[in-house]
């Protein structure tokens, strides 16, 4: 990643960019609401949503069936996709900044694999995957994601000689490989649950409901605020630990805070939606290519455009083979893998 340079990369978020990204997000949300296996008048659908705003009473004229489809199925799903996308993209951006590595994302660091292992253990132990606040699955995902991130951090912090940000990433890769192997072993040993776990691993927003939205909303709010407020610190960290320290940034504490927030966001996203890859890479890099390399730009725009990206990917996932669904992880990987190659080819000049 290049050092932020005031001459060619603006460090301040321009309102026009914010407005444009916001418009893209709203456009995708509207599209997601308008399209589905059952054709429902889009204008009336929007009125139906308005009707649910407190103190607003308007009549959409939709049949109760269609009104329920909009309010109980489509809208929570579109909103959940946007929240999950925002959390994965912003945690990807944060990991990339903290570890000064353009390929860092929740997956490479083992956090997602940790969450995956947690949920697999829950399923193998005979519990269904449910999204209630203190149900076993989300709790296990949190424990797994945080545990994996802390483990990766601990391994790199205690590794002797060469301690660079790359060390953390490498220990993350080791943690991820190990946790994924354990998960696959558990899954193969227990033939009955293979299908449940497999469906979940590929990512699922199929059964999205308001309770899932409620589950992730507080985490989205807290981690979003923490990451946005630390975006200047991310800029300073990208110059180098010693330089940052000389500028008065408490490097260790800031790094830990950012990693904790990003891992929390990952865990919440994984708990409700399974493993959805590549969002944490595609979105921050697109923002970087389009708007500049300052984290004061990347973090907020990744939140907004991450939401838009995943809501759009989910739209493809549920309409391409309708009424069957493509796992959303397949859609994001199909777009993400080629994109990953492009990033690799164009990031030759970056320092690791």
């Amino acid at each position, binding site marked *: 990643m290049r050092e932020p340079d005031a001459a060619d990369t603006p460090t301040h978020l321009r309102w026009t960019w914010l407005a444009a990204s916001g418009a893209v997000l709203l456009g995708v949300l509207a599209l997601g609401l308008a399209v589905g296996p*059952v054709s429902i008048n889009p204008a009336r659908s929007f009125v139906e949503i308005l009707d649910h705003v407190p103190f607003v009473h308007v009549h959409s004229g939709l049949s109760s069936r269609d009104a*329920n489809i909009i309010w109980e199925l489509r809208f929570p799903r579109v909103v959940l996709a946007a929240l999950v996308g925002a959390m994965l993209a912003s945690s990807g951006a944060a990991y990339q900044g903290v570890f000064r590595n353009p390929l860092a994302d929740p997956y490479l660091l083992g956090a997602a694999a940790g969450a995956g292992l947690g949920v697999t253990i829950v399923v193998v132990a005979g519990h269904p995957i449910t999204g209630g606040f203190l149900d076993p699955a989300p709790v296990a995902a949190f424990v797994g994601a945080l545990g994996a991130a802390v483990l990766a951090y601990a391994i790199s912090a205690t590794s002797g000689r060469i301690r660079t940000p790359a060390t953390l990433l490498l220990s993350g890769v080791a943690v991820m490989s190990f946790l994924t192997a354990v998960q696959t072993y558990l899954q193969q040993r227990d*033939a009955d649950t293979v299908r449940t776990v497999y469906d979940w691993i590929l990512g699922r927003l199929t059964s999205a409901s*308001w309770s899932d*939205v409620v589950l992730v*909303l507080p985490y989205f709010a807290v981690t979003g605020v923490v990451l946005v407020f630390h975006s200047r610190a991310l800029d300073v960290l990208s110059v180098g630990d010693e330089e940052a320290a000389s500028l008065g940034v408490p490097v260790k504490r800031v790094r830990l805070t950012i990693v904790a927030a990003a891992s929390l966001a990952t865990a919440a996203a994984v708990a409700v939606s399974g493993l959805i890859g590549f969002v944490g890479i595609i979105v921050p890099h697109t923002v970087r290519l389009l708007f500049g390399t300052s984290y004061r730009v990347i973090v907020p725009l990744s939140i907004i455009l991450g939401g838009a990206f995943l809501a759009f990917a989910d739209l493809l996932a*549920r309409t391409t083979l*309708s009424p069957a669904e493509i796992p959303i992880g397949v859609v994001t990987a199909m777009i993400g893998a080629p994109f990953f190659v492009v990033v690799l080819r164009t990031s030759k000049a970056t320092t690791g």
Partner: protein
Amino acid sequence: MRKSLLVVALSGALVAGSVAVSTAISAAPAIARGAPAPKRIVSLSPTATEMLYAIGAGKLVVAVDDQSNYPAKAPRTKLTGLQPNVEAIAGYSPDLVVASAATAQPQLKKLGIATLVQPAAKTLDDTYREIKQLGGATGRTKQAAAVVAEMKAKIAALTKSVPKNAKTLSYFHELDNTLYTATSKTFIGSLYSLAKLRNIGDAADTTDTAGYPQLSAEYVIKQNPELVFLADTKCCQQSAAAVAARPGWDSLRAVQAKHVVALDDDVASRWGPRVVDLLRSIVHAANDARKA
């Protein structure tokens, strides 16, 4: 320091806001529903589809899943029972959905659509109970009782046709051409037991395989079953000739005596009224093998 305080305060405010929104959302009124007899049924289970038509509730069925191929007149759609798309189901405006798993139940409930979950039967009694349950749910209690009575009578007659002192023969039930099998503990295995047949897969079963172990070709050849039943004629194009052509299988007693029986995959994997047909194939094959 001031900044971190600001962060904490803002996070707090946002959490409070989220909780307020959450409460508003969960306070949304649930849909009230009565329980009159359903008029529009969607079946996501091929077995339930067969049962519904057998008890004369076929005209209430507005859509069935992509696997429900019997009876042929059932309104087959692209709906899938494995990962049901709730919105697509709701598009048929059903007032009752019958499925073999509860996957879609929570979301259907939010739309005010009742779901009847009828999991795979483990015994014939489960089958009878599910048929009667569908009869009760569709206002066809009498028809359902008649279907069950007829099934019981036919099964009793078939069981009776197996001689009391009949010799127990060994058999292999093939689920697919990678040699997955069903043991005597399974639903289909219980039908073979009625015909006094001994399952060669039982010894290979563990708690993890739960009645459906995968056997090796070597194991099957060593066990040398006297009968082989193929429940993979449609999925995997298996036949008596294909089995005989497998390396080493030509020496099997079942192959030598031409007691390799082709079953209909669908009938052999469902637990509806057609289990009578399945039992008939099994009993006839077993009796023929004993005469030989």
